[in-house]
């Protein structure tokens, strides 16, 4: 399984994400934002956390218009897998690959702490290693993680079981406690919490490791 991790100026979770994929057995290529093409044979693209382009204009807005993002969108539109974590989630909403947008946290504070998440669907290559309803602990670290979408979009996300994770104790004001959402074909996941920061015992927990292990398993067979 071959994963590509995109690196923007201001990305700071790119290496954590690469390590989580590597530990799970994937081959990983780091791809600079000015590159226009992805390496041959990429199965999944990781869009990492951080503060791409200093969060100027809106979080993720400048990154979403960088040269490599045209290839990321094309990869997704062909049915390829994409995982966006934290700033990566913000980038994916700005590209339009995922619905909604991440607003400033309702208490206006940057929040960095482990949170309890509920896995809302096991029906995706990202979440098949968990069971629906299972609770896991994964950290958040963001200032703009307050998920917003209009009522019709929220209803569609519920009806199509596209809410992957919800917060057990909503830290940021997100609509319907949403922490992560899937695309319609269930091959693009965006989430604010950081499973790559809970992927081995030295990090204080391993609840995030199953996501990477399952992705490597499922995409290796594909």
């Amino acid at each position: 399984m071959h994963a590509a991790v995109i690196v923007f100026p201001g990305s700071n979770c790119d290496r954590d994400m690469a390590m989580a994929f590597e530990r799970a057995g994937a081959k990983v290529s780091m791809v600079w934002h000015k590159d226009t093409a992805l390496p041959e044979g990429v199965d999944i693209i990781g869009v990492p956390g951080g503060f791409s382009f200093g969060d100027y204009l809106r979080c993720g807005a400048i990154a979403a218009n960088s040269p490599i993002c045209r290839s990321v969108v094309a990869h997704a539109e062909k049915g390829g897998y994409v995982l966006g974590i934290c700033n990566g989630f913000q980038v994916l909403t700005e590209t339009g690959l995922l619905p909604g947008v991440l607003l400033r946290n309702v208490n206006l504070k940057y929040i960095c702490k482990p949170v309890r998440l509920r896995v809302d669907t096991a029906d995706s290559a990202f979440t098949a290693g968990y069971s629906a309803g299972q609770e896991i602990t994964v950290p958040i670290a963001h200032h703009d993680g307050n998920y917003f979408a209009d009522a019709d979009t929220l209803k569609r996300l519920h009806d199509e079981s596209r809410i992957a994770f919800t917060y057990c104790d909503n830290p940021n004001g997100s609509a319907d406690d949403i922490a992560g959402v899937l695309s319609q074909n269930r091959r693009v996941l965006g989430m604010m919490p950081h499973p790559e920061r809970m992927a081995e015992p030295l990090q204080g927990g391993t609840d995030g490791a199953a996501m990477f292990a399952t992705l490597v398993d499922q995409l290796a067979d594909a």
Partner: protein
Amino acid sequence: MKARVHVMLKNGVLDPQGEAVRHALGQLGFDGVEGVRQGKVIELDLAESDAEKARATVTEMCEKLLANTVIESYSVEIA
């Protein structure tokens, strides 16, 4: 030719920053501020000299980058 773009959160989208400003104004003794919405102003210097063309181009810029129309509305002034 200069253009000025105003970007505002749409009605119905919670504006935590505006709400914090409203709260701070109340603490300073400014009573009766019933709502605060915070937006941004973006000024552009354009080589274009035709006002209608400039407006069309800036509108396209708003749609593609300057505003996120999921949550924001925008208006364009050409001067």
